[in-house]
């Protein structure tokens, strides 16, 4: 979620830091409490021990709370208290995700990145085993390998969301994240909400995300239909999936990737861009400014060196999300330098694709989100809905972190309605 510059940190919900990236990531950690991902006291007390902008302390303190909560889970499990164990493991999974967030010095070779990433996956897996019905770790064929995900079945006893036979195939949410997502986070940011409403969910990591990135070292690709199409194939082979009612949702940077995929993957019956993003390239280029853009554009080694120095300087001094975006971006796009990253984002724009989307589409936007959601909405030619969450109602942040229940009301009430009209 590095595309966020928080313009007014003091007014953002529960600003726990002046450092804007820290503030946003702490809010994001806390925002998952309604789905079991956090307890407010654990988050605020952990945040209170981290000096503003101190990444080593961020790592140490989140690791400490994650380990402590995980150990609580082990104790409850050993003593035969499965509910308490499950709840502890779920929170530990989220806290390990947060812990790992700023380990971005050579992340692809950093053993701690893999270790902590795996701890987040393992904690989630332990929680999942204790749920009923239990989410299942799955993988589906992709290129010459596979992609990982979680199959989250609809909650027991829920009505069919569009009024069909509750024992028959169900509408299914195909859900992926964005620039810095894990497939486990997707449980908290939409998966559990969908299951509660009677949808099945496949929450997965594409290349550049979650364990596909950390374990398989797969990097982002702009032609996202190459990722979504095999996922749809896999869903269509399942008898419990209603083939006419597969909805695709992409979170954060996924708000660009999912529309790109839906432009050509027409088996998708509905699309949710959460939040809509028209051009990641424009966003990055705007952030670095014309001087750096000119340098990276001329292809000279000396210009690159100058651009890298300028970017390094901004990165080290910036408390904005700008700072973390670069090490993340170099990792997930396989760019060897900041300048190479600026060049590598060029194909990440939807220019030309929105008119090809044929399914009903919901474009979400937050008042403080600097993305370009309305541009995506304007370019769509399908049945479309634009929903802006006002900051005054607490939903202004990128991806509506802080108002998950309200967000899910908007998303799933829309989806219930749209999928009910599919014939």
């Amino acid at each position, binding site marked *: 979620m590095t595309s966020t510059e928080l313009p007014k940190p003091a007014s953002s919900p529960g600003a726990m830091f002046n450092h804007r990236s820290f503030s946003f990531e702490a809010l994001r950690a806390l925002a998952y409490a*309604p789905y079991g991902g956090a307890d407010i006291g654990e988050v*605020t007390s952990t945040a209170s021990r981290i000096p503003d902008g101190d990444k080593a302390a961020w790592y140490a303190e989140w690791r400490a709370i994650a380990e402590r909560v995980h150990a609580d889970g082990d104790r409850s499990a050993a003593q035969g208290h499965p509910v308490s164990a499950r709840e502890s493991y779920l929170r530990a999974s989220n806290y390990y995700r947060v812990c790992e967030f700023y380990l971005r010095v050579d992340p692809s070779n950093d053993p701690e990145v893999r270790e902590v990433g795996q701890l987040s996956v393992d904690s989630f897996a332990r929680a999942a085993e204790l749920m009923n019905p239990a989410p299942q770790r799955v993988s589906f064929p992709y290129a010459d390998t596979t992609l990982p995900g979680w199959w989250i079945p609809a909650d027991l006893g829920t009505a069919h969301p569009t009024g069909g036979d509750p024992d028959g195939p169900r509408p299914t949410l195909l859900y992926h994240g964005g620039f810095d997502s894990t497939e486990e986070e997707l449980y908290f940011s939409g998966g559990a909400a969908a299951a509660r409403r009677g949808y099945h969910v496949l929450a997965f990591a594409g290349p550049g995300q979650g364990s596909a990135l950390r374990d398989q070292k797969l990097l982002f690709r702009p032609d996202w239909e190459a990722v979504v199409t095999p996922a749809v194939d896999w869903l269509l082979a399942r008898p419990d999936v209603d083939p006419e009612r597969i909805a695709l949702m992409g979170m954060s940077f996924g708000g660009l990737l999912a529309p790109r995929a839906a432009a050509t993957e027409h088996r998708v019956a509905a699309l949710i861009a959460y939040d809509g993003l028209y051009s990641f390239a424009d966003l990055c280029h705007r952030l670095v400014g014309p001087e750096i853009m000119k340098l990276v554009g001329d292809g000279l080694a000396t210009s690159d060196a100058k651009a890298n120095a300028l970017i390094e300087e901004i990165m080290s001094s910036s408390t904005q999300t700008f700072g973390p975006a670069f090490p993340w971006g170099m990792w997930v796009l396989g760019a060897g330098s900041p300048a190479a990253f600026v060049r590598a984002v060029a194909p990440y724009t939807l220019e030309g694709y929105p008119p090809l989307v044929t399914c009903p589409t919901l474009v979400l936007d937050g008042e403080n989100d600097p993305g370009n959601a309305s541009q995506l909405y304007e370019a769509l030619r399908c049945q479309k809905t634009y929903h802006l969450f006002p900051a005054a109602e607490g939903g202004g942040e990128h991806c509506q972190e802080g*108002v998950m229940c*309200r967000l899910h009301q908007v998303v799933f009430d829309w989806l219930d309605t749209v999928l009910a009209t599919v014939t």
Partner: protein
Amino acid sequence: MAVAEQTTGKTITKKGLYFQDPFTDLAFLHTLALHGFKGSEIGECYSAAAQIEEGDVQSWREAWTSLAARVELLARTAERESHRVSARESYLRAVTYYRNVAWSVPVSDPDYRATIEKSRSLFQKFAALSDPPIEIVAIPYEGTVLPGYFLRPDASGDKRPTTIVGDNASEELYYWVGPPALERGYNALLVDLPGIGLNSFNGIAFRPDTEVPVTAVIDYLCTRSDVDIARIAVYGGGEGGGYIMTRAVSHEHRIAACVVDPLVSDMEPIAPLFFKYVLSGPTDRETLASNAGTVIPLIWGLTGPEAIKKMKVDTRTIECPTLGLNDSHDYPELLDQARKAIASIGNERADLHVFTPEDGSNYRQLDNFGLKHRVMFDWLDDVFDYAQK
């Protein structure tokens, strides 16, 4: 956790969330804490907080009224359009936000009752939309009834352990035992005991011999086929709730386990300290604390020295397993009383759990509901030899 002077990189220890006044901040925390049970949204809470002028009770009232009305409208719209989950979640948040409005109204103001009734009517909407629906019950008591809610984990009708809680308006009590009980396969009965909720307005006043109404509640549970009558537990929260349930279990031996948070066996030395430490605030003008000061006497019977003198328990007559919950920063008299009382109980499962500073540092673990629930229900699972996946 509010913003300001954090740039120096110094470690912050205890800090308010948003408001300078400790009681106002506690009330705000008490709102945010329900987030984990879908009773509030962080973003909505902070958007309301931004409208509030510190120290101006009227601005508190207006901010939450406006938010409550907006969320109520979301709920009604979702219900009309048959989005059951979204409707019930929005109703539940509206309940919280109207409750916050009530906190800014003294009980002498007719709006107090109207606001509580509003919040209650919306909770009943939430109840009807829950799966399975939460049952609205009326428990026979001395020629009248005590209102409450009966929550079941599923519609099977199986006999299950049941937790009773009754020391605050029953809608509020939902968070203290409702969701964690259901998840663990327990029933929960939320009841307005005498004095609590709107009972004082309806002529059912608080009484110090709390075993009388609690016995009526147990009688009621014994008529239900879905209650395992050998496994009935009570929970009392806050100083008043701690007294109510400690006293009740010292007389009513059909109760099989008692969790008191905290244990209070003698209200006389505790009441003034409660007002001093918990309800502290300026006395020269209307505040949230001063308004709470008008409510507490009604619900917990703290009306005057003579009434308070009658609030005593002989803890040696407690027979059931008993768990006292305390925070390490509780005022020493409260901790001492709990320690002595626990030591006087004959049952071998008379335990005291003291939450440490690293667990959190707010009144009754308000910011750590999850931890409280884990401690309480893991203990209950043990004494009842009950655990279900």
